[in-house]
């Protein structure tokens, strides 16, 4: 329950990051507010949800004694561990993009958008692995 809820909130928060960053990159009124919202969403939405998802995963694995060497668990761990690194990089870029103020997020914002989109695709693969359980 904790794992699934955390994963769903994580994906939802990433969708908000993608939408607000794309909006900020389009420019115009409110671009600054959108860049700031994207950064805050990464900080208070994506990262706490990631922790919830990851703690929940360890909890299930220890309760149910799931072997760590099956393919679908490996995919889950790889996506989660790589995802944390990309999330931290995206948060740093988003912070710097938000500090550019009226100048707009520029290349930093495009970096955040690409990283958030890559994370969404990776979590899509993880959802597939959890449902299909390849190698089980």
């Amino acid at each position, binding site marked *: 329950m904790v794992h699934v809820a955390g994963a769903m909130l994580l*994906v*939802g928060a990433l969708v908000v990051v993608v*939408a607000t960053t*794309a909006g900020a990159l389009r420019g115009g009124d*409110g*671009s600054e507010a959108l860049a700031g919202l994207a950064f805050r969403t990464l900080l208070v939405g994506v990262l706490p949800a990631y922790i919830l998802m990851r703690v929940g995963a360890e909890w299930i694995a220890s309760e149910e004694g799931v072997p760590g060497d099956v393919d679908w668990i490996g995919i889950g761990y790889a996506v989660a561990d790589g995802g944390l690194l990309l999330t931290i990089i995206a948060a740093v870029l988003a912070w710097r993009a938000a500090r550019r103020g009226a100048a707009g997020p520029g290349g930093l914002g495009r970096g955040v958008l690409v990283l958030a989109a890559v994370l969404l695709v990776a979590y899509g693969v993880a959802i597939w692995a959890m*449902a299909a359980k390849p190698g089980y």
Partner: protein
Amino acid sequence: MSTYEWLLFLHLLAAFLLVSGLVSYSVLVLSSGGEAVSRALGSPALALWNAGGLGTLVFGVWLALDVDGYELWDGWIIAALVLWLIGSGAAGRLGAAVREGQSVGRIEGARRMVGVMALATLLLLVVMIFKPGA
């Protein structure tokens, strides 16, 4: 992949879309970003909530028909359908506001509607995972 695995994947994916729509609506209602946030998040919130809602229903019912041992009249499945209806009903006015280009945050009772959607979705998740009575 078997039919069951495909249906489970698509059902799960739809549930993720549904929650993404809910999170987007929550940010729309709770943030102070004004028109810019409405423009950026309104359409994605509507599209994700609707696609997720339709997907969870269609693939959920399909799964119930496909899996031996599950029936559409099982208590936990009926409870899930009722919760789905409650969530969809609460989202109706928010969706209409987005389609008309209004700011969702300015609708009277918008926070209450998102609260009902969140509670219904959380209970749906509990019912789906624990399957009480199954």
